């Protein structure tokens, strides 16, 4: 697992992003039981309180669920997984067009670059 955090943004926000990525790319498989908060925190080398907060957020997004005595599990809802994956992909696309815009390219020009037929 690849955990990496920048110090200039809230750690819990970055944890949510990382865990979301693990879930939609099925590094954490649908229906898989998650490690305990403590073990996950240790793996990510973050404070267990921060991990707890990130997991609560993922739970409110529906990406994980708690089974009372069993722990936390990754959702099996494929539709939801695809929804978040699409959302994340669109964010990346936006980032690309924004960056190209800063370089002075229109959307059409940026698209040409993407296809590799820029002149």
């Amino acid at each position, binding site marked *: 697992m690849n955990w990496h*955090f*920048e*110090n*200039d*943004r*809230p*750690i*819990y*926000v970055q944890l949510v992003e990382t865990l979301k990525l693990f879930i939609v790319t099925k590094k954490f498989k649908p229906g898989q039981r998650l490690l305990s908060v403590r073990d996950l*925190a*240790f793996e990510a*080398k*973050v*404070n*267990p*309180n*921060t991990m707890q907060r990130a997991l609560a957020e993922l739970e409110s997004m529906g990406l994980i669920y708690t089974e009372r005595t069993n722990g936390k599990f990754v959702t099996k809802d494929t539709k939801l997984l695809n929804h978040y994956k699409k959302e994340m992909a669109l964010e990346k696309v936006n980032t690309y067009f924004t960056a190209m815009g800063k370089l002075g390219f229109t959307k059409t020009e940026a698209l040409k670059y993407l296809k590799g037929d820029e002149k």
Partner: protein
Amino acid sequence: MLVECKNVNKNYGKVKALKNINLEIPEGKIIGLLGPNGSGKTTLIKLINGLLTGEGEIFIKGKSVGPESKKIVAYLPERTYLDMNMTVNEVINYFQDFYDNFDANEAYKLLEKLGINTKDKLTTMSKGTKEKVQLILVMSRKADLYILDEPIGGVDPATRDYILETILTNFQVGASIIISTHLISDVEKILDEIIFIKNGEIYLTGSADELRREKGKSIDEIFREEFKC
């Protein structure tokens, strides 16, 4: 509340080391006590540990500082108080005699993981290894509050990582850890809350993540700006 400081003042002669400190430290948090050299960090820590007396009141789990509070506070001082001619085994026995809540098995387990020979005298060890041994001793106490004064000062980055990992893995549910340091970028990832102290006064307190969000900067950057020389 785990720790409450009410109107705490401390003077060294005419020098005001702490000015009217009011502070509450909750349970279950890792708190960074951050401030430049000479800002009053160690003085505050020593008051909480009962190694100094000042004006005002300090309560730990509702009790005044004294023998009862010392039982539930594990303290790693900035400078060692151990006899360097002792072997690790001797120090462990010493800790066992001193503290009811010291878990010798835990200490041996952590020392073994590091490949430290417990028959070795402290004096034969490198600075980094000594720091690790002392941290292990402190973290092997089942305390309610751990106070670590500059635990990562003067050690190499790999040792720093080890120290931070040891702090995290031994962070018990319900206990709190106060880490005093001026090496902020190394520790800020694991902090819940921060206390900035400047010229003996509380300058800023808050949640580390909230401060990052508010200012769009790391705690280290915020610190550097606030304390620009």
